[in-house]
Every structure is written in C-alpha cells, then in structure tokens.
C-alpha cells in the first residue's frame, strides 16, 4: 500500500489506520507497544514515527502477548498507552487484557478486524470479533468498545477511547475493520485544545499513606504511577484495597461488582448513538462500524421507495445499548440487523426487544463487505 501520510492541505486524506495513530497522539498517547499484524500494521508503523518526535516511546515487542504486557506495564508507570492488532493478535492478547482489567490499567486496544477464525483472511475485513471483544478474556469484567464508521468520527472516537480509559481506569477497545483501516478519506484534525482530554485522577496522599485501590471516595481508585516513590503491589489475583491477594468472598465479590459499576453506573457518560432518519421509522436498522455506511445508503434508498426505514448506529457497542434498542422498538415495527459476520450482535438486539418483534438478520462472511443492495433487500423483505 502506498503512503497517504504526507499532508496535502487542511483536509488530510488519511487511511483510517493513520487517523487512529494521529488521534492517539493528539489524545496524549505516549507509549505504543505492538507487534505487526495485517491489517493493523500501519498504526504501529505510524506510531513508530510519531511517538519519538512527540516525547513518547514506541516498542515492537517479541510477540502479541508481550505487546499487551508492555501496554499494561506502561500504563501502570503513568503512560497513556496503546496497542493495535487484529483478531488473531487479540486472541493472544486476551490474557493480558484481563490483567489490565483487574489491575485497572487505563489503555486503548485497537482491533482492525479481519476475516475468518484463526489466521483467516489477513487482508480482508469482517466484523466477527465483536463477541470476542466482550467476552474473549475470561471471568466477569465490564467492557467498553467503540465502533466508529467515518474517519472524522474515528479521529474523535480514538480520543474518546483514551478519555474513557483514563476516566474509568480500564482498557478500552476500539473496533474497526480492514475497510475503515485502509480506506482514505478527508479528515480535518481538530485544533489542540478544542477537544476534551481526560487524565486519570491521581492520589495526593503521601507515599506512606497510599492505598492503591482506595475506593473510599468512589468506585474509581485514585492512581499513582510506579517509579515516583509510591510502592504498591500489582497482581492478577483478586485483591483487596491494599493490592494484595485475597480470597475473602465478600471482598472479592464487592470488588468485582465495583468493576462492573464503573460502567453500569456511568452509562450516560459512555453510551453514544447516532440516529439516521430514525425519528418516524417503521423499519429499524441496527448497524455499526463500516457496515453502517452501507446501511445508511440502504435506508436512504428505502425512503425513496416509500419505506419508512431508519438507522440506529451505536458508536459505543459495548456496553450494549439495550435500553435504547428496547425503547426504539416501541416505535419501529420490525428490525433489520446487518453485520459482517455470521450473526453475533443480533443476539444482543434480540434480547433487548419484545420477544415478538420480527428481526431480520443479514449476515455475511468471505471478505467482501455487505453492499447496500443486500441490506435494502432485507428491508424490502420485511416492509
């Protein structure tokens, strides 16, 4: 692939992967630990160029597992850290991603989704890792995953991923796919200072009084980085407020429930949905990421045919917008769910709605994105 990365004027014509890297640095990312994997490698390559120029650090680790380890470690040392990968790489990263959740290490993990299980289709897109993003790492943990569709949005959602990670002290996933990663389109990077940047809350107690998981003032413990005089224990074992392991049932359960609450009690700060011609729609289309772009075309074409279709496009896919889907089904009579996999997020849609709501699945595998005509056919079928 040729380079689109030099600047041509105020409007940058960047591939999505470059947008992610540029936005990450704008958000304050100062550490990238990665391992190259198609179709995400341009993010790593661009970060390798950008970070040293911006006072940050780039390291290519020996494998995906170590890359995720470096990202959690850098976060605990106070960095805003990120990695980028694709499905096979995320499979390897999952153990350390879980470690990131339990030690509450803010970081951003980008998955540029490609096709197939295992090595699959390295150079072709899919949206088949959405359940992996939610449940891939073992045990109970909350998940925040963002699914932008357009490049300008991708820029802002990358920044939001860092903000959410910092605010709630947890890893945040940015789920894009090969379509978005390699598509170039116009982006106007916002002026620094024109967008919000959130940094994690630091504890201001003296080192001798520091309790690493002090939740006496809320569910998000104030942070102190390694190497600045504060000593604390980090473990993947369930731990109490001291950071040391515990098997006391009530403490373990209380802590796991606290982790969940970081997301469930702050849905208004995390949820984000874009609606398209949805206000008076009878046929509701639910779609995210690159497929939502095709869905927008299909909805417009359906409207031209006199079918009142509308689109719900979640930018926050996890936590799943179950309440918003449910409320919408008081208005729409039928739902169409196109997703570029063999049927994953449709299960979440199904359990968010009244049981008698007809839901048309549009699924696909093979590496060729769902075309507007395929979604339109689904809309026409149920209309």
């Amino acid at each position: 692939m040729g380079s689109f990365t030099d600047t041509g004027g105020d409007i940058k014509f960047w591939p999505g992967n470059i947008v992610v890297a540029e936005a990450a640095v704008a958000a304050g990312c100062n550490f990238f630990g990665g391992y190259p994997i198609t179709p995400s490698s341009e993010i790593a390559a661009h970060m390798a160029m950008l970070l040293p120029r911006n006072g940050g650090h780039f390291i290519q680790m020996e494998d995906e597992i170590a890359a995720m380890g470096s990202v959690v470690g850098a976060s605990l040392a106070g960095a805003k850290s990120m990695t980028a990968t694709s499905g096979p790489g995320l499979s390897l990263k999952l153990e350390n991603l879980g470690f990131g959740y339990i030690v509450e290490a803010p970081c951003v993990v980008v998955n540029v989704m490609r096709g197939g299980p295992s090595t699959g289709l390295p150079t072709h897109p899919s949206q088949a890792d959405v359940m992996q993003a939610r449940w891939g790492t073992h045990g109970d943990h909350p998940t925040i995953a963002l699914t932008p569709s357009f490049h300008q949005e991708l820029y802002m959602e990358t920044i939001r991923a860092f903000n959410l990670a910092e605010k709630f002290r947890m890893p945040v996933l940015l789920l894009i796919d090969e379509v978005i990663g390699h598509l170039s389109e116009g982006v106007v990077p916002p002026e620094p200072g024109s967008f919000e940047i959130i940094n994690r809350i630091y504890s201001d107690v003296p080192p001798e009084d520091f309790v690493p998981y002090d939740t006496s003032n809320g569910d998000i413990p104030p942070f102190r980085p390694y190497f600045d005089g504060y000593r604390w224990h980090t473990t993947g074992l369930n731990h109490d407020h001291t950071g040391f392991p515990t098997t006391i049932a009530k403490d373990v359960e209380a802590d796991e429930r606290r982790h969940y609450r970081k997301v469930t009690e702050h849905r208004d700060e995390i949820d984000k949905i874009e609606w398209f011609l949805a206000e008076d729609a009878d046929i509701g289309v639910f779609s995210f990421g690159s497929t939502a772009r095709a869905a927008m075309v299909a909805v417009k074409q359906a409207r031209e045919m006199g079918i009142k279709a509308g689109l719900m496009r979640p930018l926050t896919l996890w936590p799943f917008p179950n309440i918003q889907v449910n409320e919408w089904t008081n208005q729409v009579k039928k739902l169409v769910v196109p997703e570029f996999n063999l049927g994953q997020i449709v299960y979440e849609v199904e359990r968010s709605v009244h049981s008698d709501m007809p839901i048309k699945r549009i699924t696909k595998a093979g590496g060729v994105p769902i075309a507007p005509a395929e979604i339109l056919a689904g809309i026409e079928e149920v209309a």
Partner: protein
Amino acid sequence: MHFEARFSAVGGQGIILAGTILADASHILGLHAAGSPTYTAQVRGGPTKVDVIVDSDRILFPRTAAIDFFLSLATKSYLRFGDNIKPDGVVLVDPNLVEVPAEDREKYKNFYEIPIIQLTSDHMGRMVYTSAVSLGAMVALTDVVTEDAARQALKTRAPKGTEMYNMKAFSVGYDIAAKMKEKGEYVYSM
C-alpha cells in the same frame, strides 16, 4: 455529482499518488473523496490499483459500483481490475504496456491509448513523473476536477524542489490528451 475513478498499474509505478492528488483536488473544490487501494502481499511488481470516489455529498458506501474513469499501465492490472467500467466511461491505457483485447476498443465509447511511460521518459527523463503525466491526461479527458484544482493539489503534494517538474509533467499529459479529445482522436500519434 458522483464520480468513480480507478488507477491501476503494477506496484511501484506510483499510481496511488495520482489517486491521492485527485482526492486533494476534490477537497479544494469542496467535494468529498474516498480512496481504497488494493491490499495484497504484492507491493512491487504485482497488479495494483486505487479506487477514488468523488462526490458532492458525504460518501457513505466507499466501494465502487460503476467506474467513470479507468487508467491502466499494465496488462495484468488491465485484466484484473478492468471490470465494472461504464460503457460511456473513459478508459486510458498505455498501449506499449497493455495488450488490449480488440473487442474492448468497441466496448467503451471513450477508449484512449496514450504511451504515458514513453512520454514521461521523453519529456521528463525520470519515471517518477508518471503519476503527474497520468493525472494531467485524466483531468483533460474527464471533468471531475478543474485543471486549476488539480495543479494546485499536485503542487502542494510535490516534494520541495520538484514542483516545477511536476507542473511540466502534468502539462505533458494534459496538453496531449486535451488535443486528442478536441480532435476526436483516440490513439496518440507522434
């Protein structure tokens, strides 16, 4: 306005840059652009292409459906990527590098044969200007962007010190193609 362009060649000929400059020129004119390159393991020597969609509205589905302009600088890219071209679209090939199936000259209304590589070599002496010559010819044969916008975009993208040469290369392609279009000639003759 909706326009779909496909630049195809073999990896290393620099056609992706031509697509980028078309996108920049579109942005100068207040239009939207979306570019998708081929993405394969073949970087040098393999067939490669970039699709650039230009639209007056925001581009939703970013894949091509019916191509308005097709450039090919290699037989293998012509055969691999020469599909979904509108019958009244503009096809531009380098006849020294593309073995055109005879029926294709009838199939497309506007089938232009210009020896882009030879012209680049003769006028510029360096093959690095192939994309600027191609772009000039494309702008003359289509009305997707204005000549001014294309020149401005090319100038901005050109590495420092090469602006003048890129402008000259653009003119080589533009002038020849404009003349052919005016005269209704489809095959370039010296």
